[in-house]
């Protein structure tokens, strides 16, 4: 079973991430928690919910507003970074936490690397599926790059002048 970083610890990951192509080719697995793309979720919401544990991942360009009605039903939302340089997911995460009030697991997936982890955690990600060729112990260090921040973030929205 793959491991991820969640709430500052290395834990096993139960979720199976599926792409639209995989689902079209092989259908859905019989059981087990699955992480499906937004278009699949929007097309098959009721069937997926009836099936059991399901979560949704967003690609760049797919804004979290599309999930506003479903937030209570989703234990996990993942945001994909196909390349770490595409920073749209940072804004999506922040909106999910601060505007839409999402409290479940928010997971960064894709090209997730140690040197982005600190920023990712500050915009609201609490879970990180670090790229497979990277060491998770090493990546954990990235969460502690700084102890000082000028701006507020999703854990403490107060900027330094209000703390």
């Amino acid at each position, binding site marked *: 079973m793959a491991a991820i970083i969640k709430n500052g610890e290395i834990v096993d990951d139960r979720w199976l991430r599926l792409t639209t192509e995989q689902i079209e080719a092989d259908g859905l697995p019989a059981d087990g928690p699955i992480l499906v793309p937004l278009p699949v979720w929007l097309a098959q919401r009721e069937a997926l919910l009836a099936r059991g544990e399901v979560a949704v991942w967003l690609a760049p360009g797919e804004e979290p507003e599309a999930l506003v009605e479903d937030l209570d039903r989703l234990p996990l939302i993942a945001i994909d970074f196909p390349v*770490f340089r595409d920073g749209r997911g940072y804004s999506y995460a*922040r909106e999910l936490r601060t505007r839409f009030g999402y409290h479940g697991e928010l997971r960064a997936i894709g090209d997730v690397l140690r040197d982005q982890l600190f920023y990712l955690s500050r915009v609201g990600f609490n879970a990180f599926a670090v790229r497979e060729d990277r060491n998770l112990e090493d990546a954990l260090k990235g969460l502690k790059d700084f102890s000082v921040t000028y701006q507020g973030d999703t854990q403490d929205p107060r900027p330094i002048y209000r703390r």
Partner: protein
Amino acid sequence: MYLYQDYDRQLLAERVAQFRDQTERYLAGQLSDEEFLPLRLQNGLYIQRYAPMLRVAVPYGMLGSRQLRALGHIARTWDKGYAHVSTRQNVQFNWPALEDVPDILAFLATVDMHAIQTSGNCIRNVTTDEFAGVAGDELEDPRPWCEIIRQWATFNPEFAYLPRKFKIAVNAVPDQDLALVGVHDIGVQIVHRDGETGFQVLAGGGLGRTPMVGEVIGEFVAWPDLLAYLEAILRVYNKYGNRDNKYKARIKILVKALGVDAFRALTEKEFAHLQGGPMTLTAEEVSRMRGYFSRPPYAADATDQPAALTAALDADAALRRWYRTNVSAHGQPGYAAVTLTLKKTGRAPGDITDTELDAVADLADRYSFGEARTTHQQNMVLADVRQDQLPALWQELEALGFATPNFRLLTDIVACPGGDFCSLANAKSIPVAEALQRRFEDLDYLHDLGPLDLNISGCMNACGHHHIGHIGILGVDKKGREYYQITLGGRGDSHCVIGEKLGPSFEADEVVDVIARLVDLYVEQRHPGEGFIDTYERVGIEPFKERAYGSHH
């Protein structure tokens, strides 16, 4: 000047440690070139033609004398004995070794300096008017607002991986714009309404390959909302900016593509969620920041036009000439702001050596409360000089070569490093600048010509701001050979205008003669008291075209 607190220093120390570790991992092969690239760029480190280039942040151009000395020390110890003042008020080193950069950053941190976000696709150094806080005609000192923006932008987690670089400038003078707010991604113009401070916010300006003047997005943003409003714009840009094509990724393209009204509507929508939230500025915070920029202890007995100055001016024509160009008015009676032109013929515009940095530090200590500034015209400023000390200062500047009396005249050329250093260049800039300086060496003639902005870029990235020069020179590549295209009529003032292309480009050895012909035409056509740009705007480009190309036909 903003004084670092313990937390600012802590932040820098942690940054140095982080970058040291990143550099070590890169050198050990644990980070690929592609992964290291944005990390090093966000620390101002380019890999250039001969060596890396390190860009050190000079927030809104302010430097203390110990910081100047530290820059001199870096030039001496880790570089080839000089540094370069950039058109964004930063200081660049052209020859550091990659392995040394962590040590350089650690050393910079000892004087509260860094290279954070001086490059890369993030929010860059905030810039402003180099006479901020001393110009008599500004509404208020813009620097506290710059510092507030700087802190918000530094390691802002949401905006570290933007589609493209992002530059913010602040200006507080109503009819003058030394900060160039019109050609920044965001321009913040301080305005007063009913006695309250607010901001007119422009977005979508910039130079580079698609030069544009910004559009007004926020007509009046109340001061407590400044950061929320900036954040709203940045979020819209982060979400909708083009990421497929680097050349279409700047906010100016987004504003253009959506149309300014649609862009404004998106901004307003984001802003509605942020307004009144925790990032709202407090009066305490603003007054704390203002406290750092309080006026220095000016001498109460200093008076305008003191006898010591007027007598010296009467006695010395060279001093008079310098006084006319390089000395600017000051809001405080008895004081003046002095521009040190780094534009001596034979020296690349903006270059300054290690010993000269030390010397400027000494002068700052003795004449200007220990502070100096960098300018976007690649000069330096001592902003708080007593008028009765101007003759003595002038003599020292003369000896150092900083008193070239050409501030804002034709030979005060703004030029990027071009093909001599930059791997993106199509053509050289520095030799062109030098040839022009030699041609226009006659000071009487130069002064007679009056203000004339001449800017040179080695390629269309426009680092030398050629689009906003009254005369702009752009290096272009034609079948592997260096050519130069000339633009006319650009303005980097409150009537911001992008220059117009004169016509086909010229070979390197033609450029100086062509410029001389354009200048001759101006001299023939000008009305009394009319500057180059005014004559150009009155007569239009056609006569200049005829004069430039006439001999070829």
